[in-house]
């Protein structure tokens, strides 16, 4: 119990400013993705939309969900989960794209 409390004190206190800043970035990215969508980029439309979504989610995970400040084990776990998701998409892609 004492040990846990110590871990607590050590844990990084994230400032209000950091959150507000990431929120502003997220808002501008949201506006950006809407604006870009109105321009016809052909095959790149989906790609840009997903790229922006990926950047936004990375921001949410890193800052809002504190992965950046957590112990390494959380990063390992997250990597495992994302890899699983990636593998499923790739293997399913072999069916969908080659049918």
């Amino acid at each position, binding site marked *: 119990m004492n040990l846990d409390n110590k871990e607590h004190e050590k844990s990084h206190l994230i400032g209000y400013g950091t959150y507000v800043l990431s929120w502003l970035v997220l808002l501008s990215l949201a506006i950006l993705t809407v604006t870009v969508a109105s321009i016809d980029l052909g095959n790149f439309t989906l790609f840009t939309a997903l790229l922006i979504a990926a950047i936004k989610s990375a921001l949410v995970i890193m800052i809002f969900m504190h992965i950046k400040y957590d112990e390494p084990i959380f990063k390992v776990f997250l990597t*495992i989960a994302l890899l*699983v998701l990636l593998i*499923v998409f790739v*293997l399913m892609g072999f*069916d969908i*794209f*080659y*049918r």
Partner: protein
Amino acid sequence: MNSQALDVNSVDYLEYKGKHKGILAWILSTDHKRIGILYLVSLSTFFIVGVALGFLMRFEMLSQGKTIVDAQTYNALFTLHGIIMVFLFIIPGIPAVFGNFFLPIQIGAKDVAFPRLNLLSWWLYVIGAIFALSSLFLSGGPIDTGWTFYIPYSSRYTSANVILPLIGAFILGFSSILTGLNFVTTVHRLRAPGMSFFKMPLFVWAVYSTAWIQVVATPVVGITIILVILERLFYVGIFDPTLGGDPILFQHLFWIYSHPAVYIMILPAMGVVSEIIPTFARRTIFGYKAIAFSSLSIAIIGYIVWGHHMFTSGMSDTSRWIFSFLTFIVAIPSGVKVFNWVATLYKGSIEFGTPLVYVMAFILLFSIGGLTGLVLGALSTDVHVHDTYFVPGHFHYVMFGGTAFIFFAAIHYWLPKMFGRMYNEQWAKIAVGVMFIGLNMLYFPMLILGYMGMPRRYYDYLPEYASLHILSTVGSWILIIGLVVMIVNLIKAVRSPKTAPMNPWGGITLEWQVPSPPPLENFRVIPEVKHGPYDYHYYEEEEVKYEHISKS
């Protein structure tokens, strides 16, 4: 606090009197050991129901045409047999019973990380089971889709009661997820001092790997089930071909869970085998790290081979050969395990206790199951035997001969510890023998039938299949006789006086260093782990000391 602490250490978990009395002391208990026993009782009940349904199915196939039930009832029989055996017995199986009971003890913890969540997951199991079986008693009739709920029959055409069993399967999945995340967290957070990952018993490794699959695979079937329910209730276009959907996508999503589920079933069994063999050979396990990593790699590879259930479904040729190739890779870690088990026995001082007899039967039966699996994993041969009796023959060798036999082995191995009582060894061994004969008589003819072209799930058959069907049915009777002998023997044991010693087999993992049955908090003092789980040479030096601690 002090008086309670004393209480906790001197009373065993069976005798402990908590806030609740009678049955409530069990079904509201958050003690991992009691929850393990709860699972044992409920799983065994459903197992017996499943066996009864299987018996009826086999009896129906005794003669051509109608023997005892009509075709629709037969469809319901194989569906319910599948649902009960898969979702209610073999998937929760070893992790829920023995994982719950022994994982915390083997890593030197007082309980799992989230005891209340653990109880919740048993309750969800019971509620899910009620949903899954409720279709039996409601209008529309029992579900007849097969346990795989294939689209579009399940969403559009059948008039049977599909929704309730689907909801049941969803809830059972939730229960499985909660158990999985509990075990992963427990292993990461609650290991005793000195218990590094590579000092963990191999059963813990296996259950840990299984827990990961439970966490990352089960949600996929969860969403599949929700979508089927939505489609059936509201005509939402998702999989239904008349609405532009693609039924193959359903099969993908279903097997993304249900193939890894096969490894949820077998991996913990392999873990139990890795416990029993060193104990009865009095020898350090051969290739500890290889077995530990093979558990992990089976979990990983098992996740990426689901497509081999769909070779004839019409998916792309590219993915067919990729999945076939990946399937063969699973044989490598499985082979590593069998090799290491046999190597451990080599030059060991083997004692043929009942658990080891089960393990011997397992190695043989599982090998047959595994080799017939290669026939099904190879693209070309699968096309020939797909959806024939070869498939049930194969997976019953793996599931019954593999997992269920090891489930029984685990009961015989750990029953003295769980209940503090011994069973009659001679009758136990007779039961294994009878079951072994019955099982081979039941399932080997199925392999031949399938090879000859008898399709699975058919109500009737041509005259040339008659003799093998009769042989198989008679085999089912012998198997059941063996089961009855085993169950009677075990029940008699549980009702006998507490005479089991602390360590009847001479095992050296942590559970053998606590009294039988274990006290409420498992350990008087959390042990400090100094050497590996099967280091017999260290243990013999310290044996005297342990005896001393246990008596004080």
